[in-house]
């Protein structure tokens, strides 16, 4: 029997690089802000699904507006809070496109509360990405509907008083309760496991839309080191220890159609 020599060589391969759907530009986000990380995850999934040419983004007002600039997608910037309404119009006219909104908590949970609720209620076949950092980031860290009880912001210097200001809004749970929503999840990005889960949730939400399952929404607990007055590492720990206690992570609505999609992969 001839001796067969199998030469095995070691070759260097690139295993992680900047996604194609993300521009080469340096973002305007503060150091350590997880907006950049969430933009990157969405870009990675868009690359993976091969839908960059087919996706239309709708950006809001606030720090999240820069989504239009950092993702290489066709896009529209909507008036404050109206991204789901604009996305509804685009999707109805161009039903073969993937239409996504990317909104912060000031945009979706405050001024745009009505639009997102009715868009979910109608079961519009769009995907909303919701970045919850528990304050109004761009304008200087004022209290938002999502600010935690007792949390100090520039407009709640004694901490949020729930007696007069009510409890923080849980968007994911609320939208999951509406009959029109197909997939609703809440994620975070404070360690490798949660980043992986967030990427999976983004993928499932976009696949749900591509399969025509109806409204999908992914909420991200995001850090705001500048306005929270914490270092980027401390801010991630604050999400893990404080935010997750009130905003639990997980999937809140998986419709039957999305369950079938999930089983297929």
């Amino acid at each position, binding site marked *: 029997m001839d001796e067969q020599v*199998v*030469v*095995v*060589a*070691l*070759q*260097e*391969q*690139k*295993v*992680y*690089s*900047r*996604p194609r759907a*993300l521009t*080469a530009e*340096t*973002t305007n*986000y*503060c*150091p*350590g*802000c*997880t*907006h*950049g*990380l969430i933009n*990157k995850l969405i870009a990675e999934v868009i690359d993976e699904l091969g839908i960059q040419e087919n996706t239309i983004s709708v950006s809001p007002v606030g720090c999240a507006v820069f989504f239009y600039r950092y993702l290489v997608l066709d896009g529209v910037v909507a008036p404050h809070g109206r991204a789901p309404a604009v996305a509804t119009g685009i999707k109805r006219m161009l039903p073969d496109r993937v239409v996504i909104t990317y909104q912060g908590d000031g945009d979706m949970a405050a001024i745009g509360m009505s639009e997102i609720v009715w868009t979910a209620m109608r079961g519009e076949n769009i995907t909303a990405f919701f970045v919850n950092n528990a304050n109004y980031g761009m304008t200087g860290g004022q209290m938002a509907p999502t600010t935690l009880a007792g949390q100090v912001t520039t407009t709640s210097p004694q901490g949020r008083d729930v007696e007069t200001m009510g409890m923080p809004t849980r968007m994911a749970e609320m939208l999951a309760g509406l009959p029109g929503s197909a997939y609703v999840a809440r994620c975070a*990005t404070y*360690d*490798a496991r949660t*980043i992986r889960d967030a990427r999976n949730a983004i993928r499932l939400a976009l696949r749900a839309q591509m399969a025509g399952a109806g409204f999908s929404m992914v909420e991200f607990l995001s850090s705001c*080191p500048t306005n929270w007055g914490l*270092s*980027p*590492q401390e801010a*991630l720990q604050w999400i893990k220890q404080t935010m997750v206690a009130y905003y639990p992570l997980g999937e809140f609505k998986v419709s039957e159609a999305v369950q079938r999609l999930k089983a297929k992969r």
Partner: protein
Amino acid sequence: MPKGRIVIHVEACKGCQLCTSVCPSGLIRMSASFNRKGYRPAELVDPTGRCTGCALCAMICPDAAIEVYREAKVKPHAAPPVEEVVVIVTEPA
């Protein structure tokens, strides 16, 4: 363990230090020099080749400033072409 290497795009780094906090071998530190925006960028300090290319640093980087390379065993004839390494040169502002 496979051998790895990271490339940090110095001008994209904002010095948030999240990568230094997740490296299992503690191989990333902040540079003593500044980039054009005035941040101290992260740098890999790996004289003994302990980086495994696990990509945890790249995964948590909010600025997508880190690229990861890892050695893999390949049969020479079945080997895919090595990706070209792009060197990003930024013009002075």
